């Protein structure tokens, strides 16, 4: 993806053209970041479309002092976390366990093509608090540098490292428990 071309178009005031290039170039990357947080395809599609609408609404506010991709990832992460919190609140109001709901939907997901351990990993991630899910997804699956994740989530690098470490420990513990239970 050539960010310089998009930025050049934005400078020239060609918002629509720049936006279309962003959608074509970044949708897949953003899709996987969001899916790591909200888990189901339907919710991911919803959050991704909301992300692009938010990007379009805020396109004039993009400042070149941050990288285009961290700006886009920040918007996508916020949309995913907002949706995840809404889902958790809805589950809490109906007196049901959101993590259990996600586990069930993951087990029944026809698009899931992984093995038993990968399923256990997905379930373990779903049991994490929303922000830790985002941290774990970006670091573990996308292997993003801590500095970029810190910029995206608006936290310090040191607290982010601690957060990832805690998330990883929790995931390991959960996989171990899942392995013992089965």
């Amino acid at each position, binding site marked *: 993806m050539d960010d310089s071309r998009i930025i050049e178009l934005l400078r020239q005031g060609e918002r629509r053209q720049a936006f279309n290039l962003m959608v074509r170039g970044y949708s897949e990357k953003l899709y996987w970041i969001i899916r790591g947080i909200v888990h189901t395809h339907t919710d991911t599609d919803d959050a991704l479309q909301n992300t*692009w609408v938010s990007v379009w609404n805020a396109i004039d506010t993009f400042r070149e002092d941050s990288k285009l991709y961290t700006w886009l990832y920040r918007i996508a992460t916020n949309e995913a976390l907002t949706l995840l919190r809404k889902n958790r609140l809805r589950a809490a109001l109906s007196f049901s366990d959101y993590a259990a709901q996600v586990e069930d939907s993951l087990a029944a997901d026809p698009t899931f093509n992984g093995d038993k*351990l990968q399923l256990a990993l997905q379930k373990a991630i779903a049991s994490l608090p929303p922000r830790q899910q985002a941290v774990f997804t970006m670091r573990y699956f996308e292997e993003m540098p801590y500095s970029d994740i810190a910029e995206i989530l608006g936290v310090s690098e040191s607290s982010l490292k601690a957060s990832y470490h805690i998330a990883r420990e929790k995931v390991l513990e959960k996989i171990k428990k899942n*392995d013992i239970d089965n």
Partner: protein
Amino acid sequence: MSVMKKVGDILDDAKMKQRAFDLPVSYFEGLENRVSSKIGKQEGGGFVRILKPAALLACSLLFVFFIGYGILSLTGTSGQDIKEAALAGNSTVVEDVVDEEEEAIIEYLAQNISLEAIHEYINTSETDNDTSNQ
């Protein structure tokens, strides 16, 4: 090797980092159009979207006003009536009571006590006062 170590090795396995989901066929091909359509809808309804909260607030205030007005109309009282009843009404009652008491005292004195008796009472009172002062 402990169980935790084994699990730790599992997380380090590259296979675990692979995406474990398939994407619906041609999902990204239609995405651009869906996003454009969503933005178009949002921009089309932009004016309504901005006005909606203000209109709702105005409707709520009007509703409360008419409810209050309706109650006052049904009970046959207005703000002015209430104020007058509170001020003028109460003071008239007090004045009437005072007037009636004075009239009753004068009437009683006129009928039952003669002027001579009053003079005698006054003189007696003055004499008593002088005696007590000495």
